[in-house]
């Protein structure tokens, strides 16, 4: 107390100032550290999540290897490997016909008339802003028109800046409609004067993927010369099964969803692959590899590459040809990524042993008719599980010389093209030189700065703009500013986790960035509050991961604690966790958040596990390891279920369910007895009709994607917490309509834009006073809402 009293007033003030400043700086540094490890956690979770995908592939590969002729399993397996129907376009048009769909009078959404015009496109945006849903008749119609248009577009969009001032480039949107609306608000909607390039990943994860697609396609139809769409790796129907888009469509369009999905499948395959601006700037979703060749890209039949999980079908498949060529395809599968499977060494052996088996061995183990054999091999061919540059090099040397030249050439080209496309859509830049297979994603490459340099020189380009990776500030340069990542989905991992951004590119081709963060729910939250909430979610997800690996962790701890004291020191705790989870996280920094107490620097790990336990009332009778396993493989499980659910009804038969679990358990070398399966089923088969509701099953065991669930919950909680602020008590739509004005920097006070006024008239409670209130206290809004327009100086 006395340290101040003996000082003069001026000195006291000075001393006080310094004190507060140093405390502030410590606080800021701690915030920064938390922000960083929270980010690391999310990235690690995503990495772990991607590993799930690889597990899925491995499982499917295992199924192929271990095909047994029992009739029930055959049905199941053929469900899984179901072939796409091959029809001509005219047949497809009939299948997708919408003319018989009636639109009831009570439907209050947009009624589209074709050809579309600018006003209808704007109305569509407005309708979606107001949470309306477009009627399936118009959806099909719009999609059909889009399909027709896409079919005449080239693989490489060529854009020029000479006719316009600036081109706007957006990255991943992932179903986050608020971000697209924010972009349009800030930047204006697409038009003749305002061309846009959208760089893929429009769907999955977010909940409004359909609406985003409809908006983008509408503008594409209205301004075909000024809207350019690139394909992303999520424009892929199999990926959609896993990441939520399929589910969204089926939920929103119960009657016609299946046809809509089919049409989208075709549309995705017809999306152009890259865009080039002024022959100087390349825009592509993922990136490049050391073999990327734009001349080749220009020539491919891009629509043959429907999914990255299925190599191209042959153009004219005659029975014998395909049979012969499937041998080649089988060899293609041989070269699976060697390092891919991180957590399943055992099943991986199965793959390796398959590689060593000759085709003769394989065909002799199972007595089948020629037709069945042919079918099986075609299935196998379609499940070439990944494509790496290594594997393709090996493949070309493995091709035998006595093959039919025609077909082997075709395979060569087909294969080569496929790899080119995968590289474009899946690759990521790395800081080291060279080009290596992208084993984290299971497709594409990691490419280094030397590859960039070489590529740019070869094609006389100066910049690569790509997306595909979430960046905290919405954008990031690398490779000596020759590669630019742009990511437009803000709050991607969690509310407050990152900004989104878009690029404006003028004739000087200098990128100008605009960052934003959709803040409907977070207005009024300060930056530290944001950090705390994001951290909270990240830690919850992390704790879950720890819990579901309990058995492995316990073994690891017990290995260290040989005397069975039940105690372990923090350092050992941290190293053990890292060994088991492979998440590369700073566990020692995190430990205060994950461990409630230690005695003498030692942790009572049994007690710790008890603290971590997730309470699942419906599953208490299920054994721990089983629970952990199911939880760990939940995404694989769910995806398989959805594949098996051939009519997309959301239900699978009890028999199929049981077969799937049995196959999974065999694959994991885990015993799942019939009684356990029965128990699982009974607790979820609420309608007792022998069918399982997939969503219910996943939910019953809390097997849903926790992080998404948490995000939803935290959004809800934020809404509730902010009840006291007048504008927050409005329904979301009205809250949104006031949001645009808050997107200004405090320096420039906004005038209410006309757009939000028209929305206001629909919901009259959002009078202007709330709007001006928030404008008055810019301090608390700054962090969340400020648009930072950054002009990047030329290199």
């Amino acid at each position, binding site marked *: 107390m006395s340290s101040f009293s003996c000082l003069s007033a001026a000195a006291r*003030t000075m001393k006080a100032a310094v004190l507060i400043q140093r405390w502030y700086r*410590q606080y*800021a*540094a701690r915030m*920064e*550290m938390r922000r*960083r490890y929270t980010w*690391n956690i999310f990235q690690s979770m995503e990495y772990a999540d991607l590993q799930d995908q690889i597990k899925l592939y491995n499982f499917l590969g295992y199924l192929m290897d271990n095909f047994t002729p029992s009739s029930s399993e055959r049905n199941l397996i053929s469900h899984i490997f179901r072939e796409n129907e091959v029809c001509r376009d005219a047949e497809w048009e009939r299948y997708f016909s919408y003319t018989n769909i009636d639109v009831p009078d009570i439907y209050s959404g947009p009624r589209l008339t074709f050809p579309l015009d600018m006003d209808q496109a704007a109305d569509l945006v407005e309708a979606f802003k107001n949470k309306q849903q477009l009627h399936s008749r118009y959806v099909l119609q719009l999609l059909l028109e889009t399909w027709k248009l896409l079919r005449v577009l080239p693989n490489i969009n060529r854009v020029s800046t000479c006719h316009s001032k600036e081109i706007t480039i957006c990255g991943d949107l992932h179903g986050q409609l608020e971000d697209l609306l924010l972009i349009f608000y800030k930047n204006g909607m697409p038009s003749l004067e305002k061309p846009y390039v959208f760089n893929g990943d429009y769907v999955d994860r977010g909940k409004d993927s359909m609406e985003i697609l409809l908006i983008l396609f509408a503008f594409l139809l209205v301004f075909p010369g000024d809207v350019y769409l690139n394909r992303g790796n999520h424009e892929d129907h199999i990926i959609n099964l896993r990441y939520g888009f399929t589910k969204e469509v089926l939920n929103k369009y119960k009657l016609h969803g299946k046809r809509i999905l089919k049409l989208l499948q075709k549309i995705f395959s017809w999306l152009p692959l890259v865009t080039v601006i002024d022959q100087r700037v390349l825009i592509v979703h993922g990136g490049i590899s050391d073999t990327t060749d734009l001349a080749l890209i220009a020539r491919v039949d891009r629509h043959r590459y429907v999914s990255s999980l299925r190599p191209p079908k042959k153009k004219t498949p005659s029975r014998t040809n395909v049979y012969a060529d499937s041998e080649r395809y089988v060899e293609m599968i041989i070269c699976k990524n060697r390092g891919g499977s991180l957590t399943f060494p055992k099943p991986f052996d199965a793959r390796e042993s398959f590689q060593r088996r000759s085709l003769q061995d394989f065909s002799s183990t199972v007595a089948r008719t020629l037709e069945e054999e042919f079918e099986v091999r075609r299935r196998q061919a379609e499940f070439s599980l990944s494509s790496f540059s290594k594997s393709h090099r090996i493949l070309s040397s493995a091709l035998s010389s006595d093959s039919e030249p025609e077909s082997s050439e075709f395979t060569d080209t087909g294969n080569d093209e496929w790899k080119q496309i995968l590289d474009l859509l899946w690759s990521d830049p790395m800081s080291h030189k060279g080009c290596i297979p992208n*084993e984290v994603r299971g497709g594409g490459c990691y490419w280094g700065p030397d590859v960039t340099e070489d590529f740019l020189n070869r094609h006389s380009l100066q910049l690569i703009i790509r997306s595909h990776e979430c960046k905290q500030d919405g954008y990031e340069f690398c490779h000596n500013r020759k590669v630019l990542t742009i990511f437009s989905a803000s709050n991607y991992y969690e509310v407050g986790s990152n900004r989104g951004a878009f690029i404006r590119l003028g004739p000087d081709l200098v990128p100008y960035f605009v960052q934003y963060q959709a803040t409907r729910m977070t207005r009024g939250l300060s*930056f530290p509050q944001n950090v705390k909430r994001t951290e909270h979610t990240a830690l919850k997800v992390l704790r879950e991961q720890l819990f579901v690996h309990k058995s492995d962790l316990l073994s690891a701890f017990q290995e260290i604690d040989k005397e069975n004291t039940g105690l372990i020191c923090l350092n050992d705790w941290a190293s053990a966790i890292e060994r088991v989870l492979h998440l590369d996280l700073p566990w020692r920094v995190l430990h205060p958040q994950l461990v409630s107490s230690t005695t003498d620097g030692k942790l009572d790990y049994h007690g710790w596990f008890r603290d971590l336990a997730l309470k699942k009332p419906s599953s208490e009778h299920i054994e721990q390891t089983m629970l952990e396993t199911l939880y760990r493989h939940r995404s694989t499980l769910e995806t398989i279920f959805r594949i098996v659910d051939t009519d997309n009804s959301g239900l699978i038969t009890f028999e199929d369910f049981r077969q799937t679990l049995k196959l999974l358990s065999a694959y994991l070398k885990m015993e799942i007895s019939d009684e356990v399966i029965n128990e699982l089923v009974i607790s979820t088969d609420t309608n007792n009709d022998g069918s399982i509701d997939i969503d219910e099953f996943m939910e019953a065991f809390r097997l849903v994607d926790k992080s998404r669930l948490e995000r939803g919950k935290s959004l809800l909680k934020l809404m509730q917490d902010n009840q006291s602020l007048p504008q927050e008590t409005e329904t979301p739509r009205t809250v949104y309509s006031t949001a645009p004005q808050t997107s200004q920097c405090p320096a420039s006070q906004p005038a209410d834009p006309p757009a939000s006024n028209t929305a206001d008239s629909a919901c009259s409670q959002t009078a202007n006073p709330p709007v001006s209130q928030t404008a008055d206290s810019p301090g608390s809004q700054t962090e969340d809402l400020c648009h930072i327009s950054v002009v990047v100086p030329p290199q």
Partner: protein
Amino acid sequence: MAPKKIEPKKPEPKKPEPKKEEAPAPAPVPETPKEPELDLKSILLEFTADQIEEFKDAFTLFDETPTGEMKISYAQCGDVLRALGHNPTNADVLTVLGKPKAEDMNTKYLDFETFLPMLQHISRAKNQGTFEDFVEGLRVFDKEGNGTVMGAELRHVLATLGEKMTEDEVDRLMAGQEDANGCINYTSFIKHILSG
């Protein structure tokens, strides 16, 4: 989608650290003859192995080198020291860094081995400022003695005196703290700073 990259990052920090490039012992500045020379090499490290591992984790969090070389810039040094729970002033940080020039702050880097003695030195500093001092500091601005301070005055002082804060920093500090009259209740303000 942003995966964790499997780049050969991890092996690097485990390799033996290269010889320190920076010679941290500065020549004493003539204007302040009282300040002793800080010879980092002579500092005895008293941390336990466990503690060092923890510091390494934190250090790595701030490593922004593209290839994960376990280095931080001079400008980040203060942040890492503070993130580890210490309370140096900017002047303290510059001292341990060897009074670098302004342009060095963003261009020069230090590795973990060099950082440790700095951390040790800072952790021994006696006048870190206690919580009570902090409260006292705020009370200085409580003109009416009623537990509140004027936000505007605080902003002004923090931005113009002592180790000046930028407008951005002040905004972050005061975010959501001022009431409708622009006053800050400093008990909750302190909780806000400390609980963060």
